[in-house]
């Protein structure tokens, strides 16, 4: 039962990070390696809010999401908009976000120092038990918040005008231009939403771990793995992949030990990608190579 609970918690946080990466790649054709830094910056934003403004749970979560969204917009304005449509754009945007990521991590080190910061606990409704597993407040809170926000995003993707634009872009960039989807404003929207999701994940994860300049590194790698395993651009695929990866991690660390997680994870990736070379969702079979 503990395994199931751990799987669900990890899966909800991975989904939050991975959907941003996935949508950015599928919609805009660029891999955002600064996603990890957005994660860290949002964590610091939430920490500053908790220190100086208010320790209320809503304020901290909203601050994290807002700062994340702003950081996403910043990445978009600095790297994506100037390079979109220029020669060699694919590798240059990759490089640019990598540079921003270096820059961000080191600036955070300079400003806040390497010591990790702790966020106040947000969820205080106490622990409860399912079967033989103890579910702490931060875990249940993380799942509830993540599922709620994710449903909201999926709803927006399916129903709103901008969401429609995003879905058109992931399927056919030229077709999108023909039917009047503005690539640049949609790009801003995509990165703002991805940033906000990363910010939320950051606040939720900071309930267990701390906020530190390098905090975004592991989520970035896990997010990339989940996003690609899920098939870039496919929301259901991403969620399925998040569950798969989380289950793999939970099972490995329970039965084999934490140091083997990466090994089993890699075997899982290899198997899935060899069976389905475009990931679980397999949406982009023809749209993007």
């Amino acid at each position, binding site marked *: 039962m503990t395994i199931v609970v751990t799987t669900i918690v990890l899966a909800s946080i991975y989904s939050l990070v991975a959907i941003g990466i996935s949508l950015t*790649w599928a919609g805009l054709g660029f*891999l955002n390696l600064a996603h990890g830094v957005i994660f860290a910056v949002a964590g610091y934003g939430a920490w500053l809010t908790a220190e100086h403004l208010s320790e209320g749970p809503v304020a901290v979560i909203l601050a994290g999401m807002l700062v994340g969204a702003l950081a996403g917009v910043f990445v978009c304005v*600095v*790297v994506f908009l*100037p*390079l979109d449509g*220029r*020669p*060699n754009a694919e*590798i*240059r*945007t990759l*490089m*640019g976000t*990598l*540079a*921003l990521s*270096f*820059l961000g991590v*080191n*600036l955070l*080190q*300079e400003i806040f120092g390497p010591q990790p910061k702790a966020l106040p606990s947000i969820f205080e409704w106490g622990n409860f038990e399912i079967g033989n597993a103890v579910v702490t407040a931060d875990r249940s809170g993380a799942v509830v918040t993540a599922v709620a926000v994710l449903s909201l995003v999926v709803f927006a993707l399916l129903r709103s005008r901008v969401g429609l634009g995003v879905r058109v872009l992931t399927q056919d960039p030229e077709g999108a231009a023909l039917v009047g989807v503005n690539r640049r404003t949609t790009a801003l929207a995509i990165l703002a939403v991805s940033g906000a999701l990363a910010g939320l994940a950051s606040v939720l994860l900071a309930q267990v771990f701390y906020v530190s300049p390098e905090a975004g590194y592991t989520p970035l*790698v896990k997010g*990339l*793995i989940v996003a*690609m395993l899920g098939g*870039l651009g496919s929301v259901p695929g991403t969620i399925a992949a998040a569950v798969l990866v989380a289950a793999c991690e939970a099972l490995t660390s329970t039965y084999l030990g934490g*140091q*083997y*997680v*990466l*090994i089993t*994870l*890699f075997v899982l*990736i*290899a198997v899935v*990608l*060899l069976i389905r*070379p*475009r*990931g679980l969702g397999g949406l982009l079979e023809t749209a993007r*190579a």
Partner: protein
Amino acid sequence: MPKGIFPEGILPKGFGFWSLAFLVALFMPLVVGGIGFISDSALLMVYLGINLMWILVLGTAGIYSFATLAIVGASGYAAAYLSVRHGLSWPLMLVIGLLVGAGLGVLIAVPAIRLRGIYFALFTFGLAELFRSYTTVTDALGGAPGLYGAGTFVPADKIGTETGALIGYYGAALLVVASLVVYRLVDGGRLGLLLRTARESEPFAKALGVDVVRARLTVFVVSSGMLGLIGALQVCLYRGISPSAFRFDTLLLLFAMIVVGGLASARGVVIGTVVLFFISQHYLDAGPMRFVAAAVIMLAVTLLTTHGLAGVPAQIRAWRDRRAASSATSLSLDQPLHGLAKERS
């Protein structure tokens, strides 16, 4: 408008750049001296060798492979293991490195036939992490501290002295020359042509009768073999290896070097590697801010240049040509005063 310092056709293209580079590589460690500087230069040579082999796959063949460090490290581990545990001598270590590298190249190339672009990148990204965690938990491979006490080509009585460091450096430099030759042979030869054709359009290459799978397999085996050799040489230089050989930051740094210099040219690799190596090492007296400086340079290069630093002359030339073309048609940019003055009067 002459394109280089020398008139075209008299000397081979790039003669000035390469002779200067070779002279600097030959005499710089002698002139500056000091064990620290010489061993840093040796590391720079190792990076250069790795990057040269990497762009064969990344640039010429256009396959997003990040398995580079995994191959270097794994071959290094094989050589170090046989040397430490079974007393293998250094020439055999180099041979083992070459063979293990080539073998791994085949294994990694097989999924490359099925996986495309970014998915292959993910697959190979994971390899380094896989090896890192495997070597950390395996006691036979020394666990987290690594394997030490491997054989080396530096004579026993010179180890730890400046002469010893110099011998190590020239050994590494020799390998860079070998890598340059391999790069030139593959990239400038028939194989390079086939690979570039396949990179631009696979269906077209197939229609021409190019055996794409075989060409890609060959380039993988050749570059991986060389990478394995470099891995074994690195073990000789440091007399051992540890799981930090697979560090993710090193991989990203190497990638940054390649892209800053300009993908797909040996000259770009040399420029990018030297520039970023200089910034990332401790020569600049700027403390942690030097990473910020490195990041700003990377950002500036990516935003301003289309093909890295090595592509700057071509970019300027193209811009100048465009300007000349537009002024020729509109008479407005190069001689605005004459044209306008006459019309006004």
